């Protein structure tokens, strides 16, 4: 079965970029526009991977990450953080909170596809 990936970003343009980047691999993509939606979708869908934007209005990516890690059902789900250069300081915090990887914005479609593939460990 195709791996399910949850994309959480408040910007439409970025979700479109992620969708297009991952389209060739035919994953099952689920989208969330903010932290609350992301947590709800994660509990419902049990994704194989979560792509989480660091900076979102309301619950930040770090807040969502902490919630995921605190939920026994979701604690082991790999989380890839999407970060901007202006938030490099938050990376250490995200790593400490259990993020599995980072991709800096801007990223090329191919770059994201490769990182996602690595994190899924060959699960297509």
């Amino acid at each position, binding site marked *: 079965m195709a791996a399910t990936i949850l994309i959480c970003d408040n910007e439409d343009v970025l979700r479109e970029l992620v969708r297009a980047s991952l389209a060739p691999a035919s994953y099952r993509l689920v989208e969330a526009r903010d932290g609350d939606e992301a947590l709800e979708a994660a509990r419902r869908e049990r994704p194989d991977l979560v792509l989480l934007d660091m900076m979102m209005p309301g619950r930040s990516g770090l807040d969502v990450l902490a919630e995921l890690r605190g939920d026994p059902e979701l604690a082991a789900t790999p989380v890839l953080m999407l970060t901007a250069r*202006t938030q490099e300081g938050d990376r250490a915090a995200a790593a400490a909170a259990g993020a599995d990887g980072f991709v800096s914005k*801007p*990223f*090329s*479609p191919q770059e994201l596809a490769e990182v996602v593939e690595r994190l899924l460990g060959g699960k297509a």
Partner: protein
Amino acid sequence: MAADVTRGALGRAAGLDLTAFRPDHVEERVRRALEREGLSEPAELLRLLRHDSAARERFRRLIAVPVSGLFRDPAQFDLLERELLPALLAESPRLTVWSAGCADGSELYSIALVLERLGALEESVLLGSDLLEENLAVARRGLYGEVEIRPALRRQARWERRDVVREGAPPGPWRLVLCRNLAIYLSAAARAELHTTLAGALAPGGVLMLGRSERLVQPAALGLVRVGPHAYQRARP
């Protein structure tokens, strides 16, 4: 708009050749400018443009539509990164890239990022040209919301003001030319002229990438062959 005289006068006041743009595009943008500035007639807009440089800048940007975005239309960048750029780099590692009508520069930086990943950034020449100096200022800053372009990428890009339709191409030849979503705003005559200019600026084997709603009517007449949905390659001798 009442008459072409008004359009000509508006163009002179704004420092833009409005005759190169599609008339319906200009009319729609003038309407929008009137609304935005709270005016009712083009004559009032003309007075405003003559006296208010900030209004002039707003009008110029309305007409020349600096819509862009990093990796806008990702499928095109995917094609570039997976197929077109590796093929070009296999031929020679020194790539010359011209982003024609580069708007805020995000297109050229997207290419720079891909070239860096392919290990070809440092040898490459990257030029962005745009009609509006104010767009180039944004490009030079390289700051898009929360996203900041790294100095290594910024250093590699050059920027210049150029009206491609009237002034032609910068000295090349160019192995990759991107001109996406500029022709759609131009009159048919200016568009044909632009396409001839772009094709002529390509090195043999060079690639021209147009926007995803654009295509060349007769690529062969320009010495080009289609190599992707909106990509064309200049034939080698």
